[in-house]
């Protein structure tokens, strides 16, 4: 029995005297895929930041191949063979893909150090080689900005792997990529494992964990609850360890009488990304929109909501044609859109919980342009209670909340506008089991109240569990519609996979 590749012993860390990690130990063997699980706020990210030298621990030690090491800064961690794929990507958007992959370790034509002359051609070539090895179809010469989130994620993964790291930390690597890309990633993980590279894999997705993990460690409230081989766990035992109480992941589907069409979309088109989309959403109905990342689902609802200007098409609210040219008009017509990315388009991270909740419907708490603070406080408290948002107070900065609770704040903001049609774009991405369940319950409740709910999701299980009807999109077009009794993963994937027709 050799010593483990990485050993973490008795790590403790506090922020502002609040302990976020207490006596955490973790042992990762060579060539092992070690899943670290826990709800948001359990301390996983803090632990990983310590491993990457981004923050320092208050106590404890870290041993690499049996020797204690000091991880002063990210450079030191990288030099020791640790690499991390961040949950929140940090690419340089205006640089080429190849430049991003080699950021910080540029290939030099001659010279050394910062004065060396960068050999862009060689970097492109080396990048193409890496992509070929991982069968990734991205052009190394294009600008990072022009990639989709999924493509950026793939680039980040390649970047981390290509640093010839001994340990690769993957923080929610599949949160933004499609099944097909997940398969590519898992093949790559298997290859790395075979080469003796260890992977610390952070994810909320239980299916994934069971597919690839050798060992599983579960954290809760800054403490390591359990760590064992994967076969010793069941779905339920992991969830129990994570939340510390019994919880059922699946929310029973409520049957709600479905009413009139509230929103009807006819031949909606936006440039070449949304083409001729028609559908209607009815009161009390949960309408799912499935498709691969990049199928144009987000673009479609953003066009519908007036964020993008439709090239053509018609929108009818309660059967009356209406023009929606801005989000303001969409809100006035009773639409709400919980956007895909809460950090960039959903929240004012500098604002408080209350300010964010009342942002879209501030007119309702104001009179003559003056905010009625008392009313605002009552409404904010109300939202915090009904949505069970875990926050110190309504005055806490929204950035201090966990992902799931931030998402609830975005939901609260939109519910304040009393919408008739509520569109949720990937509402449970990157949030923990408990918050997910709360959001499922809420979606059911909204349908029960007679609202038309439209849910975009890339998780098939989720969308099949929630929806009454699923529309499938591929390459900007609506390729199919399935009633609940016809739901099947195979059928959805079939419709979602782009056909071989020649692109115009």
């Amino acid at each position: 029995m050799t010593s483990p590749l990485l050993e973490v012993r008795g790590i403790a860390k506090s922020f502002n005297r609040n302990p976020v990690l207490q006596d955490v130990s973790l042992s990762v063997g060579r060539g092992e895929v070690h899943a670290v699980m826990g709800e948001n706020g359990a301390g996983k990210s803090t632990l990983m930041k310590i491993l990457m030298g981004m923050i320092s621990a208050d106590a404890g030690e870290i041993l690499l191949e049996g020797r204690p090491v000091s991880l002063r800064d990210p450079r030191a961690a990288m030099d020791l063979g640790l690499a991390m794929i961040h949950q929140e990507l940090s690419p340089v958007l205006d640089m080429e893909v190849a430049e991003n992959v080699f950021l910080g370790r540029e290939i030099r034509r001659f010279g050394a150090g910062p004065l060396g002359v960068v050999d862009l051609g060689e970097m492109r070539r080396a990048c193409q080689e890496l992509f070929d090895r991982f069968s990734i179809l991205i052009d190394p010469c294009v600008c990072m900005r022009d990639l989709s989130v999924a493509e950026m994620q793939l680039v980040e993964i390649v970047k981390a792997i290509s640093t010839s790291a001994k340990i690769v930390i993957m923080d929610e690597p599949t949160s933004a990529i499609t099944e097909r890309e997940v398969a590519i990633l898992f093949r790559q993980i298997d290859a790395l494992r075979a080469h003796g590279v260890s992977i610390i894999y952070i994810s909320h997705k239980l299916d994934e964990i069971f597919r690839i993990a050798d060992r599983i460690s579960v954290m809760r409230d800054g403490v390591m609850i359990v760590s064992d081989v994967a076969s010793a766990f069941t779905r339920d035992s992991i969830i129990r360890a994570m939340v510390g109480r019994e919880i059922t992941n699946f929310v029973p589907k409520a049957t709600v009488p479905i009413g009139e069409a509230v929103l009807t979309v006819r031949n909606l088109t936006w440039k070449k990304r949304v083409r001729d989309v028609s559908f209607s959403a009815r009161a009390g109905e949960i309408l799912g929109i499935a498709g691969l990342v990049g199928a144009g689902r987000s673009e479609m609802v953003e066009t519908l909501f007036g964020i993008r200007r439709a090239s053509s098409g018609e929108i009818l609210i309660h059967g009356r044609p209406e023009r929606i040219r801005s989000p303001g008009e969409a809100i006035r017509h009773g639409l709400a859109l919980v956007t895909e990315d809460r950090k960039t388009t959903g929240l004012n991270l500098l604002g408080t919980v209350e300010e964010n909740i009342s942002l879209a419907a501030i007119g309702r708490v104001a009179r003559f342009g003056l905010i009625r603070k008392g009313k605002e406080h009552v409404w904010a408290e109300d939202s915090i209670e009904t949505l069970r948002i875990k926050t110190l107070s309504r005055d806490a900065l929204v950035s201090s909340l966990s992902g799931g609770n931030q998402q609830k704040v975005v939901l609260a903001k939109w519910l304040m506008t009393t919408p008739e049609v509520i569109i949720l774009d990937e509402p449970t991405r990157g949030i923990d089991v408990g918050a997910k369940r709360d959001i499922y319950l809420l979606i059911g409740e909204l349908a029960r109240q007679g609202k038309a709910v439209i849910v975009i999701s890339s998780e098939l299980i989720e969308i099949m569990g929630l929806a009454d009807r699923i529309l499938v999109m591929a390459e900007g077009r609506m390729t199919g519609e399935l009633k609940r009794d016809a739901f099947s993963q195979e059928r959805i994937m079939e419709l979602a996979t782009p056909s071989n027709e020649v692109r115009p």
Partner: protein
Amino acid sequence: MTERTMKPTASKRRPRAYGADRFFQDFGLVLIFVVVVGVLVVLSPGAFARPANLIGIIKQASINGVLAMGMMFVIISGGIDLSVGSIVAFTGVVAASLAHPGAYPLALTIIAPIVLGAAIGAVNGASVAYGRIPSFIVTLAAMIVFRGAALIACDGSPVFGVSGAFEDIAGGFVRDVVPYLAIYFALVALASAFILKMTVYGRRVYAIGGNPVAAGVSGINVRALQTSVYAISGALAGFAGLLLASRTVSGSPTAGEGYELNAIAAVIIGGVSMSGGVGHWYGPVIGALLIAVIGNGLDILNVSSYYQLVIQGLIIYFAVLADVRSKGGLR
């Protein structure tokens, strides 16, 4: 991470207890101001604490304070306005030209520079919002253009010969004690405080500074709002131009040089974030007062004006450093 503080075991810790760090974050600037004033009173009781001197300080701070209030709106919204110094000169020349005894009604000489400033600001704002040109560049261009326009308007030489009534706008006193200038500053500060804190408009200024994309998605007309904050800054710069012309009894095309930087300094010292979205109204008020007090104090202590510049620069540097520190380091 915050979630765990909700747990019963952690509640003993009282994470929100009002500790020293939070006190300094909220009132550090006030404290610095009080300390500086205290030191000056001790060092030079006869000269500094004289009523005439204190009134002089307030007059000194007022015009910069008015500009700082407008600058605050722009900076909180996520922009910057470099044109205010030149607008002061241009509108000052216009106001003085209109203020010859018996030429035009006094009301016109008061309204014209303000409306003119607002119009210039609105053009700046529209260029930023609809033209998508960075505010630094738009207002840098406007700064140069309106310095030139001020020179053209008076053919390069200051405009003299204003009426007594015009002189009284900034030169008058209430009961011979409180200068009108101080009252204007107070009114502008209170109005700004009211707008930022109490109104939907103010809330939205913070929202577009915090995250313009999220604000737009939430139904806020981000462009119109951006345009309006520059119009406010421009209007207040026009008002400041009027006050400066009245105070100096002339309209000088070279007046107000560097005023934009003083206003920015007051806003920054006041703890308003240069990246937008964060800041309290009283910060820039105290910032403007602090700049005036320090300038006056150094004069009284016979510190050479060369050294004064060094000291003022260092104060801005350390104010921001302290601010960054108190907000949890540079990350």
